[in-house]
């Protein structure tokens, strides 16, 4: 190319940059995993393998790059919390690192949102002050359920191997995805960066209480993937193939949508236990679903984030969440949850 042409091209690039006012940022490609098996409150066996299988498969083809890897005693409660949310936090160097695309946690959670209190409707569940409730269907009887509550959801770690510690990702100091592109609307400054977070734990979210339990977790992260038991006593299995099933969809088609990929990854997961409405298994003991939830300013953007954003587009920081206003979700149940709706209204 002639020198004159190069100068003109450079001038045009500078002009374009000035007009947009937003400097181009590098692609966010990191894959970070955190996993715990060595719990003093109940040993697990397959979480380190689950996270490693996800990571290895994602990195087996070009595109994404290796982020951090922490297991057992290297997984701290502060890995998940934000230093700008008024708590002790260091997610900037751990679960919400600038430059990361996907962060995956595999380990324990707490099913304290489920109760054995019988119910026939939402209104029949005893009220708990300031906490929303739902009546989860429990049997083929259309009016028989058990109450569940929007109690803050938790990641459980065990840094010392002697005492389990909970990280509240509903109301605590957890805020993921904030960076210069997303802006600081999540009140977490701009020192994060992850674009898709997976919480692979027990009772990751209570059916229908997505807003109550997850609104504050978003600070720019496009989508969060979780496992959602849909009946009381159901739960995610201690499985080694869930993360690998998710990664396989990327390997097959990088132009597929990431949110639906997490939901549909349940189809390739094979362990678990039966569900009272038929089916079951697929990485879940009982009845449940893989669910992906997105938050954005308006319907077109939230639909795009949840159902259209591809693995390739996930790497682009310009696609970060810009604020809160609308939620969209996609889930795949391990049974016919269209016929057997999991909520008694």
């Amino acid at each position: 190319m002639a020198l004159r042409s190069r100068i003109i091209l450079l001038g045009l690039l500078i002009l374009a940059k000035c007009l947009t006012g937003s400097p181009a940022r590098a692609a966010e490609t990191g894959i970070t995993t955190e996993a715990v098996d060595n719990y003093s409150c109940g040993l697990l066996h397959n979480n380190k393998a689950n996270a490693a299988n996800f990571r290895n498969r994602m990195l087996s083809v070009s595109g994404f790059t290796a982020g951090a890897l922490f297991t057992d005693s290297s997984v701290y409660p502060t890995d998940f919390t934000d230093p700008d949310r008024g708590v002790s936090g260091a997610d900037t160097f751990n679960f919400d690192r600038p430059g990361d695309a996907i962060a995956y946690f595999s380990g324990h959670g707490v099913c304290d949102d489920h109760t054995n209190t019988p119910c026939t409707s939402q209104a029949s569940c005893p009220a708990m002050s300031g906490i929303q409730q739902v009546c989860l269907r429990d049997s083929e009887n259309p009016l028989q359920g058990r109450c569940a509550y929007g109690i803050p959801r938790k990641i459980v770690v065990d840094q010392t191997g002697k005492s389990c510690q909970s990280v509240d990702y509903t109301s605590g100091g957890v805020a993921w995805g904030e960076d210069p592109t997303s802006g600081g609307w999540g009140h977490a400054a701009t020192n994060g960066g992850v674009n898709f977070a997976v919480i692979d734990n027990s009772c990751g979210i209570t059916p229908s209480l997505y807003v109550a339990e997850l609104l504050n977790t978003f600070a720019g992260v496009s989508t969060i993937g979780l496992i959602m038991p849909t009946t009381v006593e159901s739960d995610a299995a201690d499985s080694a193939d869930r993360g690998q099933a998710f990664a396989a969809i990327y390997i097959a088609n990088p132009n597929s949508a990431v949110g639906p990929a997490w939901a549909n990854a349940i189809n390739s997961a094979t362990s678990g236990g039966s569900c009272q409405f038929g089916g079951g298994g697929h990485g879940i003991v009982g009845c449940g679903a893989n669910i992906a939830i997105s938050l954005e300013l308006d319907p077109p953007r939230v639909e795009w984030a949840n159902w259209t954003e591809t693995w390739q587009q996930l790497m682009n920081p310009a696609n970060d969440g810009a604020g809160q206003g609308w939620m969209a979700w996609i889930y795949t149940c391990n049974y016919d949850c269209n016929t057997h709706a999991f909520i008694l209204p």
Partner: protein
Amino acid sequence: MSRSIVSLGFLVLLGVAGPGATAQTADPSANASAGLRFDHQLERSLFDPGANVHHVINVAYDRAVGDKGVFMVDRITGAILAVPNAPGATPKPPIAQPAADAAVAVQDRFPRPLTENAEEHNAAVKDYFLKAGIPAAEIAGTHVTTTMAGGGAVKDGVQFNRSVLLWYTTHLERSVGGIPIEGSVAFAALDSNHKVINEGVYWPAIPATVVARAQALRRMLADSQAKAGFLAKLRRVRPDIGDAEGSVVIVHTSAFYHGALQVQAVYSVLVRGGGGKPQIVRFDDSGSQVRMAEETVRGTDTPKRK
């Protein structure tokens, strides 16, 4: 060279088993029949990858890439996965000014489902895979998974009844010699045009010796005294199984695990500990705990930034 290619030399084509089914020669010492391997292929698939299909091949994967999606063959395991491109692939919409307040429109984004009747979907998918050559005798049942989606304004809080059915996915349940096979998958979701939305198949050969061993274990457990002794042995290995009872299954490594194929007859027990994720604990017929190879994969920790 991949294991699937190597094993071709040992495969025996069985015409009665359908166009895609092959079997390893059965161990003559076993009375049990082997499980037949089934390799699904794009040519027999109802998945439409679209126009301009070209193959992108590397050591592990053969991907038939079209302008609508990809049909991928794992060249190591023989598993396939068909995945459509993102629906309505476009750049992210700009922020609406003023903020749009229209309802979230779910179904316009996706293909229409074949049916809202799960049994009807099961029958259609079973018929589809049978025509593709899956061994009929190994289909022990069917069940669905259900994909739904929805959305709404954050200010509305609890989101009852905002989700709509996108599609069912039917799974064929596999058994050989009356023993359920854990790890095998054959699933497909069909749209209203009887085209596949997405699908996956992994149906490896199951050696007759493993089937025979599982059947022998099941016969042994039918004797109450022998069963009591066996369970006592298991509880010495894993006291946390308590009084939980299990079942005899054959388990193999999963579709996209690239280590050596592991196929074992096991007694599988579901253990619900003191809270948290339930575990599936497996034992062989001697009472020793079985760990699948992919359950032992580990990485190397990153140095912690203090």
